[in-house]
């Protein structure tokens, strides 16, 4: 006798939980990055306001935190526009680097496992992931 178990619905739930967790961390990275941008670095708040989180289109999934400057951003070096974000993070030959994304990723990224645990627990406790469904 052969018994087959279709794990597909269960694995789909697991995928959803993973997505929820990476999204939560990505949002936290964004928030932290915005906090790193003080008034001196980002006086108008334009850069802090142009940090986005979106779902990765890659097969492995996950979420991407993406920063770019204000489209119309101009300073004495000329129109930097969207490239402004990278020059704040890495610096230029005239401007000291003021990293905001990398430190945010480092401090928040390590909470990913905790987030996984929390979301799995929540999901298992909900009716969808109970064993009786499968």
């Amino acid at each position, binding site marked *: 006798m052969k018994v087959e178990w279709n794990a597909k619905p269960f694995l789909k739930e697991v995928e959803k939980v993973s997505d929820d967790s990476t999204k939560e961390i990505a949002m936290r990275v964004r928030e932290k990055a915005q906090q790193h941008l003080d008034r001196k670095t980002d006086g108008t708040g334009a850069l802090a306001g142009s940090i986005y989180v979106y779902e990765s289109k890659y097969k492995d999934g996950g979420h991407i935190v993406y920063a770019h400057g204000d489209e119309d951003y101009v300073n004495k*070096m*000329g129109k*930097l526009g969207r*490239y402004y974000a*990278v*020059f704040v993070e*890495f*610096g*230029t*030959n*005239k*401007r*000291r*680097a003021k*990293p905001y994304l*990398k*430190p945010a990723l*480092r*401090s928040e990224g390590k909470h990913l496992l905790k987030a996984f645990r929390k979301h799995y627990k929540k999901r298992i406790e909900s009716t969808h992931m109970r064993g009786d469904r499968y």
Partner: protein
Amino acid sequence: MENLLKGIYLFFTAAPGGTNNAFYTAVGGRLYLGQALEEAAFPYCVYSLVSASPDYWFDNERFENATIQFSIFSENRAPTEVSDAYQKLIALYDDAATTVTGYTVYEFEREGQWLLRDPGPARWQYVVQYNVLILKT
């Protein structure tokens, strides 16, 4: 972290047998911490501490985990000069056996690199980041 930054600089200036390393020669010995001198000639390199945090692996063992950034600047129209200096930088610092007073260096690992068009008088910037793991001795 001060000792780590010092160690990185001493590794750059070390001249065993009286010969400087290829990266030192490529940037004319110009490696600055944080920001270059206003009158610095091109090409040159700036290094800085991006972030640092304690890392606990085993009981009573507190590692310091740091990200170090090197930025090489060139004013050449083509990115060849900056790329050449980049090759020499990674030859020197990838898995480098730097000496950091009071610490054992466990890891000096390249995390990533980016070639950027610089908006200032420097035309090119090559950014290289390393992850460094050190343990107090």
